[in-house]
C-alpha cells in the first residue's frame, strides 16, 4: 500500500452512514411528472430543442449545449412536454429557473442507443464530444461540466486521474453504494477517462469507513485492463474535498487560486465515471443518479436510483417521510448541504443526498454566544486558516485583513462552525464576506471602467475643442490675409454696411404703409 499523507485539522462528526443501508439500490420509480431545470450545472444554460405538446422518448435531447461551458439535457423517460416555465429549483437562495415539465406515460420507451464498440481506438476528442453530448456534469456536488475538465491536457499534460470515492460527508452513501454495486463500471469509466486524459496513473480513493466498497473496488481494480491503485486512508471530514484529497494522496497542495490541473491531476467522482462509461460504451445520456434519501424522519431511508427531475416530494413519499418532529429538508449532506424551503423542487444532476433529520438528530442551533477565541476552529480548519480572526474581520467588514488572512482559500466545509462551542455560524459570515468582496471587486471593475470612459471622453472633447480652435484660427488667419490683400474688403465694415442698408430699407417700408 502506498503511503498517504495527513491534512491539517478536520473533524469526526457522527457518520450515520449505516442509516441509509449502503450497498443496496432501491428504485424511486417513475413519478407522474418530471420537472427538468435547463441549468443543472456550472455554466451557461442549454437552449431548448422541444416545445409544449411534444411527445418525447427516453434519452431524447430536450436542450442542447450553448457554448463551451454548458451541458445538454435529455428526457429521463418517455412522455409529453406539458409546460416550459420558471419553477423553483434546488438552490441555497430558493431561486427559480426555466424548467421543462414532462408528463411521464409510464411506458419508459427509449431511443435506440449506440455506443463505441472499441473506445480504445477512438481519438480523445471524439470521446470528449460524446461525454459532452451525454450531458454529464460532475456528480459529486459542484456540477462542473465534465467535458470541460477533460480538455485539461490541451493546456498542459496530465499525469494522474483520481476517482474521489471519499464521500466524507456524514449520512451520504450514494458513492459508497455505487462502489459496491458497480465497481467494475467505475473502473471501466476511469480507464476511459484515463485514455481521454492521457494519464499514466489512476488512483481510486476510498475512505477506510467503507470496507465493503473498498473490497469491491480492489476486486474490480485487479480485473481492470490497466493498473489502478486503490488507496485508502483514515476517515476524517473533509478528506473528500478535492484539494484535501490531493494532499492526502500526493502530499502536494493545489496552489491558491489554482486548479488540480496545475499539478497535472484531474479528480472525478465515481458517479461521473459511471456516467462516462454509460455514455461511451452504450451511448446513454445522463438521466438518472443514485440519491441517498436519509434521516430519522423517514420510514424507509436508503439509496434510491432516481430519474433526474423527480420531485423531492415524490422521493420523500417513496421513502416514507413522517413530517412529525422534522423542521429541515437538506439538499446534500449535513455539513455542506443547503436547506430547502419546500419539497416542491426536483432532483438534479448534483443531488447526492436528501436529508430529513428529526429535531433530536440535528437540533435547530441555539442563539450564538460570544466568540472566546478558543481557537478550536483553527485546530479544525483543513485549510489552516484562522477562522476566529476571519470572523472578527468579516464582522468588521475589514477587506484588507480578510484578504491578508486568505478568506478566498476557505472551502466552506463547516468544520469550524461544527466545533465552535459558542455555536457561531462562522461559514455564514465567510459566505457573506466573500459576497461582499466579490461585490467590491465588481464595483472596482465598474468604476475603473467608467473612469476610463470618462477619461476617454474628456480626451476626445479636448481634442475636438482643439481641432475647432485650430479651424477657427485658420479661418481668422485666412480672413485677415484677405483683408490685408484688398482693403475695401474688410468683412466687419461690410457687415455693418449690410445691416445699415437693411435697417433703412425696413424704415422706408414702414413709412410707405
Amino acid at each position: 500500500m502506498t503511503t498517504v499523507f495527513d491534512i491539517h485539522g478536520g473533524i469526526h462528526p457522527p457518520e450515520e452512514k449505516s442509516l441509509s443501508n449502503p450497498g443496496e439500490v432501491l428504485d424511486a420509480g417513475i413519478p407522474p411528472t418530471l420537472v427538468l431545470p435547463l441549468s443543472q450545472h456550472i455554466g451557461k444554460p442549454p437552449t431548448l430543442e422541444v416545445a409544449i405538446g411534444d411527445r418525447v422518448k427516453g434519452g431524447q435531447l430536450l436542450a442542447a449545449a450553448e457554448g463551451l461551458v454548458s451541458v445538454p439535457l435529455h428526457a429521463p423517460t418517455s412522455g409529453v412536454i406539458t409546460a416550459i416555465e420558471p419553477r423553483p429549483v434546488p438552490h441555497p437562495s430558493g431561486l427559480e429557473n426555466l424548467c421543462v415539465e414532462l408528463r411521464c406515460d409510464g411506458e419508459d420507451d427509449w431511443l435506440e442507443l449506440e455506443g463505441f464498440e472499441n473506445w480504445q481506438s477512438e481519438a480523445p476528442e471524439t470521446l470528449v464530444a460524446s461525454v459532452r453530448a451525454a450531458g454529464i456534469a460532475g456528480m459529486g456536488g459542484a456540477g462542473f461540466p465534465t467535458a470541460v475538465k477533460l480538455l485539461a491536457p490541451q493546456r498542459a499534460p496530465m499525469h494522474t486521474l483520481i476517482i474521489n470515492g471519499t464521500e466524507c460527508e456524514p449520512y451520504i452513501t450514494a458513492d459508497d453504494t455505487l462502489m459496491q454495486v458497480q465497481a467494475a463500471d467505475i473502473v471501466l469509466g476511469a480507464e476511459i477517462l484515463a485514455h481521454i486524459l492521457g494519464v499514466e496513473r489512476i488512483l481510486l480513493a476510498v475512505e477506510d469507513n467503507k470496507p465493503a466498497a473498498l473490497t469491491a473496488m480492489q476486486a474490480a481494480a485487479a480485473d481492470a485492463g490497466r493498473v489502478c491503485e486503490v488507496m485508502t486512508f483514515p476517515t476524517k471530514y473533509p478528506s473528500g474535498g478535492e484539494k484535501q484529497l490531493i494532499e492526502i494522496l500526493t502530499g502536494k497542495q493545489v496552489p491558491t487560486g489554482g486548479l488540480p490541473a496545475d499539478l497535472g491531476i484531474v479528480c472525478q467522482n465515481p458517479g461521473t465515471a459511471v456516467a462516462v462509461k454509460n455514455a461511451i460504451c452504450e451511448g446513454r445520456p445522463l438521466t438518472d443518479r443514485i440519491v441517498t434519501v436519509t434521516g430519522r424522519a423517514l420510514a424507509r431511508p436508503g439509496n434510491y436510483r432516481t430519474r433526474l427531475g423527480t420531485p423531492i416530494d415524490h422521493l420523500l413519499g417513496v421513502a416514507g417521510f413522517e413530517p412529525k418532529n422534522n423542521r429541515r429538508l437538506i439538499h446534500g449532506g449535513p455539513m455542506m448541504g443547503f436547506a430547502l424551503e419546500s419539497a416542491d423542487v426536483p432532483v438534479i444532476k448534483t443531488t447526492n443526498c436528501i436529508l430529513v433529520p428529526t429535531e433530536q438528530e440535528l437540533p435547530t442551533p441555539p442563539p450564538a454566544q460570544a466568540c472566546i477565541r478558543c481557537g478550536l476552529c483553527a485546530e479544525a480548519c483543513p485549510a489552516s486558516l484562522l477562522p476566529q480572526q476571519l470572523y472578527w474581520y468579516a464582522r468588521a467588514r475589514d477587506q484588507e485583513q480578510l484578504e491578508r488572512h486568505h478568506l478566498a482559500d476557505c472551502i466552506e466545509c463547516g468544520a469550524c462552525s461544527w466545533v465552535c462551542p459558542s455555536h457561531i455560524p462562522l461559514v455564514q459570515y465567510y459566505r457573506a464576506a466573500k459576497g461582499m468582496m466579490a461585490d467590491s471587486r465588481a464595483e472596482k471593475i465598474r468604476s475603473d471602467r467608467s473612469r476610463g470612459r470618462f477619461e476617454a471622453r474628456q480626451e476626445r472633447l479636448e481634442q475636438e475643442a482643439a481641432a475647432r480652435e485650430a479651424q477657427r484660427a485658420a479661418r481668422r488667419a485666412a480672413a485677415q490675409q484677405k483683408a490685408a490683400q484688398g482693403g475695401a474688403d474688410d468683412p466687419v465694415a461690410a457687415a455693418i454696411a449690410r445691416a445699415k442698408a437693411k435697417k433703412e430699407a425696413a424704415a422706408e417700408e414702414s413709412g410707405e404703409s
Partner: protein
Amino acid sequence: MSFLRITSPHGHGPLTTAQVMQTVLLATLPGVVVLTWFFGPGTLINILFGGAVALACEYASLWLRDREPAPYLSDYSVLVTSTLLCIALPPYAPWWLVTTGILASVILGKHVFGGLGYNPFNPAMVGYVVLLISFPLQMSTWQAPRGLGEVPGLGDSVTALLTPGAYDGVTMATPLDLLRQNKGLLLDDLYAQAPQMVQWAGIGWEWVNIEFQAGGVWVIYGGVFTWHAPVGMLVMLGLCAAAGFDSGSSESGGSPLFHWLSGATMFGAFFIITDPVSGATSNRGRLLFGALVGLLLYLIRVHGNYPDALAFAVLILNFAAPFIDQYTQPVTYGHRPQREDEE
C-alpha cells in the same frame, strides 16, 4: 409545507462554551485542595464569597447594559474569572479586598469593553493588579504553611473575611520573597536557614504548583486548549532561570526547578495565560506569547520590585497579543512556497 431555512453546517459538535468553562473550573480543583491543605480554608472561602459577588456583579452589569442575563450567566465565564482571581488572592483576605478585586475584574476588566470575548486584558489579572497597586500590604501578606504555623479553621476563615482586624493569623515570607530579599547568603545556606525552603522550592508551594500543573495537563488532554502557551512560558522561564542560576551564589536568581514550582508559575502557565480571549490566537502566536510571559516573569521576579510578577507579565503581553497575531499567521493551504522539485 415550509421547512426551516438555515445555513450549513446543520450538525454541531458536542462542546459548548459553558462546558469549556466548567472544565477549567474543575481543573483548578486539585490545586485548590492542596492550597487548602497547606494554608487552610482561606482560599476556598475567597472562592465561594468571590463567586457570589461576581455573579451579582455580572447580573448587574448585564442589566445596566440591557442584555438578557440568563444566557450570559449560564456560560460560567464569570465564575472562571472570579475563581482564578480568588486563587491568586492571599487567603484570609478581608471581604472588601475580594469585593474590590471582583468589581475591578468583572466591570473594568470585562464589561467596559463589551463583555465576554471583547476584553483585551485578562479580567482576573486586571482585578489582581488593581488590588496589588492599591493595597500592597494586604496583598503581600501570606499565611504560613502547615507545619510552620497554625493553620486556621473554618470559623477563623469566615471571621477573617467578614471582620477584618478581628482575626490575627500567622504570616510568613514566601519563598519568592525570601529569594528576592536574600542579599548575603549562598543559595544552599538560604535553603538551610529558612524553614520555608525545602528540597525543590518552598513548603506547600511545590505541591500547589504540581497540582495546578496536573489540572492544566488534564484540560489540555481534554482538547479545551492547546499546550503551546504553557510550554512556551515554562521553557522560557526554565532557560532564563538556568542562565541566571550561577550555581547558587547570593546573587543567584534561583534554579529552574525553584521557579517552576514557586508562586503562581504553574497556575499562571495553565490557567491564566491560556485565557484565549486576551492571549495570542494562533498556535505559533501562543508559543511566542507564553515565552514572552516567561521572560518577563523571570525578569520582574529577579530584577523587579515585586516578588511575583505573573499579573504584570500577562497584562503587558495582553497589549502585545494583537501584534503577535499579525506576525504568527499559519501558512494557509496552497500558500506553501512551491519547491523546485515539485511539478
